[in-house]
């Protein structure tokens, strides 16, 4: 396997794939969207955008679960830590996402907020501190949702509950495609989410919208193979027998991970859910089923979202960035007022956020500070 992994990083193969892409002449602009923060980081890290021909644009869609977590949910987590005396445990980048305050600021004023690697670390805190309520703030797409489901299924202590803010990718793609003026010629499907959910969830959309799709992994050859396949299909407008090209066959199967899917189905039901800066997307959230009512922090603490909270800072274009309508560099706050040390918008906070990736890997545009 190790040898295979090296093959997906092979410089000669990368050069050949790039040459193939450059040799295409579609005669029009081709716009390909990915919906995965790790893909954005890979594209930035490998410097692909500088290597592509002028007709090819790769834009980032809503691929960062931390970025799309609504301010109302962050605020509930903050209130659980500050007003309800709960220990709130969550992922490292979630604690820095602004709402009325961040979880990190809540910690500075006495709230008990702890960073964990995964849900099991939060369960362990609950076991060690049986006299305290421990809430795991569960943010993430299907890749994380299945770990929440597995931990709950295995059994958690009575003082443990989950503030559930999981989001699902396929309904978001459906919503994106339905938005007017989106103009996407191809979608790169998110590798990790698809390892869990499989290709089949995308089939109805792929056959209905006729937009080419390709699953990509995270090595340079994985990504370029997907981009080449999409560019070819978009350029020729050919309709291959399988509208979804799987360039990540070593990890992605048609049905994904059936055990994970089943455990998720037993634990969650789908609900309409808000995406920060985008709005409510039907059927795009996971909420705990009735059998897990005791572990549902929102019910347990009778929390109501405070809808008066602003989703974005004035002038922040994160909502437009998440939809791929503007580039981070187009935002007047980017780099000057909003940076990883002092993030004003969610896309600058999270490691998978498009603004964060561009800040870290990008070069300042000419004429900009």
């Amino acid at each position, binding site marked *: 396997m190790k040898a295979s992994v090296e093959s997906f990083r092979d410089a000669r193969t990368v050069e*050949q794939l790039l040459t193939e892409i450059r040799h295409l002449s579609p005669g029009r602009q081709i716009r390909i969207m990915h919906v995965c923060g790790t893909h954005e980081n890979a594209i930035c890290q490998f410097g692909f955008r500088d290597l592509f021909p002028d007709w090819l644009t790769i834009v980032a869609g809503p691929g960062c679960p931390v970025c799309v977590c609504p301010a109302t949910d962050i605020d509930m987590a903050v209130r659980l830590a500050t007003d309800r005396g709960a220990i709130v445990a969550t992922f*490292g980048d979630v604690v820095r996402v602004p709402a009325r305050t961040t979880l990190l600021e809540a910690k500075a004023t006495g709230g008990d907020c702890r960073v964990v690697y995964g849900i*099991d670390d939060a369960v362990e805190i609950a076991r060690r501190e049986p006299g305290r309520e421990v809430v795991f703030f569960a943010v993430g797409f299907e890749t994380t949702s299945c*770990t929440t489901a597995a931990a709950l299924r*295995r059994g958690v202590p009575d003082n443990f509950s989950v503030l559930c803010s999981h989001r699902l990718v396929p309904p978001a793609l459906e919503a994106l495609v339905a938005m007017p003026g989106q103009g996407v010629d191809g979608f790169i499907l998110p590798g990790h989410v698809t*390892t869990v959910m499989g290709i089949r969830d995308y089939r109805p959309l792929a056959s209905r919208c006729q937009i080419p799709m390709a699953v990509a992994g995270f090595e340079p050859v994985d990504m370029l193979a997907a981009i080449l396949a999409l560019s070819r299909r978009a350029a020729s407008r050919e309709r291959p027998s399988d509208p979804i090209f799987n360039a990540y066959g070593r990890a992605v199967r048609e049905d994904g*991970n059936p055990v994970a899917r089943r455990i998720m189905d037993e634990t969650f039901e789908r609900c309409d859910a808000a995406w920060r800066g985008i709005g409510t997307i039907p059927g795009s959230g996971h909420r705990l089923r009735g059998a897990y009512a005791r572990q549902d922090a929102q019910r347990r603490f009778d929390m109501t979202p405070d809808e008066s909270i602003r989703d974005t800072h004035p002038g922040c274009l994160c909502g437009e960035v998440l939809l791929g309508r503007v580039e981070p560099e187009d935002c007047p706050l980017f780099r000057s007022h909003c940076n990883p040390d002092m993030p004003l918008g969610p896309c600058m906070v999270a*490691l*998978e956020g498009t603004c964060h990736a561009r800040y870290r890997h990008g070069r300042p545009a000419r004429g900009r500070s």
Partner: protein
Amino acid sequence: MCLGIPMKLVRVDGTVGTAEVDGVSRKVMLDLLPEAAVGDYVIVHAGYAIQSLDEKEAKETLALLAGAGLLEGGP
């Protein structure tokens, strides 16, 4: 946070395993991948193995690229 890391499974004890990458080893939960065996490469996310990597499929992808004339000489 959504970082899946390919790791090699070196120990399995029921639903708990140990996986290694680049000299780093850590506990991984196998609840979502009960069939995983020692020697498998798995993608680890937030402490859980979420999928196994299939070497045969990896070779097929590379062969497909070569077959499409993309990788002259092939891997």
